[in-house]
């Protein structure tokens, strides 16, 4: 399945490895920070699923858009978001992406083409569809990658949006990150078929399976879908079977799945796999790979430091920014 990554350049391989490692280190650190109380609220770790975000974004231009989910830190980092501002948002600090008003499930960075994470399962699917409509109507040649999970695929918005996007030939790529569990509910208890990609037939669009543990396989599937979309031929549904190595959110004890199953999936760790490809093809030396990992960890250290040093927002800011007006304080 990785054969289509044969033309992978050394730069692209290192870039992908860096992002995989950055997201891994970032998410593991966030979980610690949630556990020790530095970060309040909850978090939905992306550990294990990194290949999907990184592989998908490898196929996108800087001005292409992504729409993210509740498990969204990886998408933001993969699209070029700033780890400092992301971490500061998780801390609820003024320097965060939303000035602390959004939090883990609600942040965006339009400058890098990230249109926002979304706290409602399936909530982002229509938003991404509309961004694709906007790109089409303005003739920009941009495409939109709409991320969502297996749980969201059972929402009505999935059906409505894929139908509309196919009908109007919108430049959208629907990237289903099927991590096999909607919170605790196994896919087999919630979905009447085994492969969500098979649903594409019902919408008259291509449906593709890509190994969600293999960044190059995801990138290859995305490249084809992006080309299809930019050629004006409409959307694609890509299903990436993947696995979250950790719980759904901070408090999940994972009672609904076995440690054996988890171990089997960890054998397919996307970082290990890309390292093996890099070593086999001589795309980077072991020393280089170590340096990439150190850089990733250093970026996370710096982000934590930045977030800790940033001030909390002024409590009076609570009334600001409800409306996009010159005078945008909340009306009394």
């Amino acid at each position, binding site marked *: 399945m990785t054969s289509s990554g044969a033309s992978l350049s050394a730069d692209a391989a290192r870039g992908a490895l860096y992002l995989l490692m950055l997201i891994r280190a970032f998410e593991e650190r966030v979980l610690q920070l949630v556990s020790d109380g530095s970060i309040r609220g909850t978090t939905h770790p992306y550990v294990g699923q990194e290949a999907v975000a990184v592989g998908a974004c490898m196929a996108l231009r800087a001005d292409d858009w992504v729409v993210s989910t509740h498990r969204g830190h990886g998408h933001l980092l993969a699209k070029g978001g700033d780890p400092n501002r992301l971490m500061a948002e998780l801390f609820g600090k003024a320097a965060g992406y939303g000035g602390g008003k*959004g939090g883990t499930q*609600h*942040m965006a960075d339009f400058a890098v083409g990230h249109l926002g994470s979304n706290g409602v399962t399936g909530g982002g*699917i229509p*938003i*991404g569809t509309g961004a694709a409509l906007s790109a089409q109507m*303005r003739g920009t040649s941009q495409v939109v990658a709409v991320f969502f999970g297996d749980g969201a695929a059972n929402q009505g918005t999935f059906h409505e949006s894929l139908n509309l996007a196919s009908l109007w030939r919108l430049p959208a790529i629907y990237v289903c990150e099927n991590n096999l569990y909607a919170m605790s509910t196994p896919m087999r208890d919630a979905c009447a078929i085994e492969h969500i990609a098979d649903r594409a037939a019902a919408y008259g669009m291509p449906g593709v399976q890509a190994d969600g543990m293999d960044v190059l396989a995801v990138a290859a599937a995305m490249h084809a879908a992006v080309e299809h979309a930019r050629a004006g031929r409409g959307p694609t549904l890509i299903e990436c079977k993947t696995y979250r190595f950790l719980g759904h959110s901070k408090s999940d004890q994972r009672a609904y799945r076995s440690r054996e199953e988890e171990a089997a999936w960890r054998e397919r760790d996307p970082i290990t796999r890309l390292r093996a490809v890099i070593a086999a093809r001589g795309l980077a030396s072991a020393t280089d790979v170590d340096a990439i990992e150190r850089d990733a960890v250093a970026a996370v250290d710096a982000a934590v430091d930045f977030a800790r040093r940033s001030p909390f927002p002024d409590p009076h800011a609570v009334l600001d920014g409800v*409306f*996009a*007006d010159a005078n945008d304080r909340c009306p009394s």
Partner: protein
Amino acid sequence: MPELTYWQALQEALRQEMTRDPLVFLMGEDIGAYGGAFGVTRGLLAEFGPERVRCTPISEATIVGAATGAALTGMRPVVEIMFMDFVTLAMDQLANHAAKFRYMYGPQARVPLVLRTPAGGGRCYGATHSQSLEAWFLHVPGLKVIAPATPADAKGLLTAAIRDDNPVLCVEHKLLYATTGPVPEDEETLPIGRAATRRQGRDVTLVAYSYYVGIALQAAQRLADDGIDAEVVDLRTLAPLDTETVVQSVRKTGRLVCIEEGTRTGGVGAEVAARVAELAYEYLDAPIRRIAAPDVPIPFSPPLEQETLPTADGIVHTVQEMLR
């Protein structure tokens, strides 16, 4: 000034804004050749083409969500939801996403989305095609809600809504579409968030909006024959609410009646009454009264439906009680 119907005035606003700004486009069910369930968009498909007058499948959540995504990325969509009752199907997109993006994502985000929707009863459409749900949206920070009562207001407020950088809900009472009135020909906008005093009076303030402004004016006329001088305040915008105009009126008259077709509990009138109680309690000479639908689903049968709707008779009777 030409006389137009309310629906023509809305269409004038759509046409002028679509002509002025290529980013403005329409989306909704049966808004093309059919012209929309109440005819507001008739002719616009021929005029602007299917790219800008987009007939959609029956997918309210995605109509509103896609419009939100388009708005977030620079377009200015105007969505029609065929009956206000069906906004329920798009509630997540409207209340959780469109309304909150600006606040959560910061100044980079703006959602210049207009959602037009026919509301209200009086046509025997039954419980799922007759509701006046506007009060719900007062409880969603980030949304603006307009409810024009006249053709001129319909044009001016809808124009302002299309130019507004926030999500705006335009509530159009079905019984208003065929009403007529003078409408300015130019691209005049009316400020969102400002009420209008439709009739000056000294004895009682009747607060209404949309179709019930006309009913309140009829009641005021009859009260005048009785020697009672009613002031009629047309809210025009429900969010943000023009508290100032209402409070000033009550300070003058000492009595307040809130009139609406939505159900009574948690209604627009409840909010108006609460604000007046907070800000002008000492000016009140009588308890505040609300005239609204009882807390029942809208029934079909004509006499039953009529029983739920506010009437000029009911207003006159209530005011007479207050002044007794």
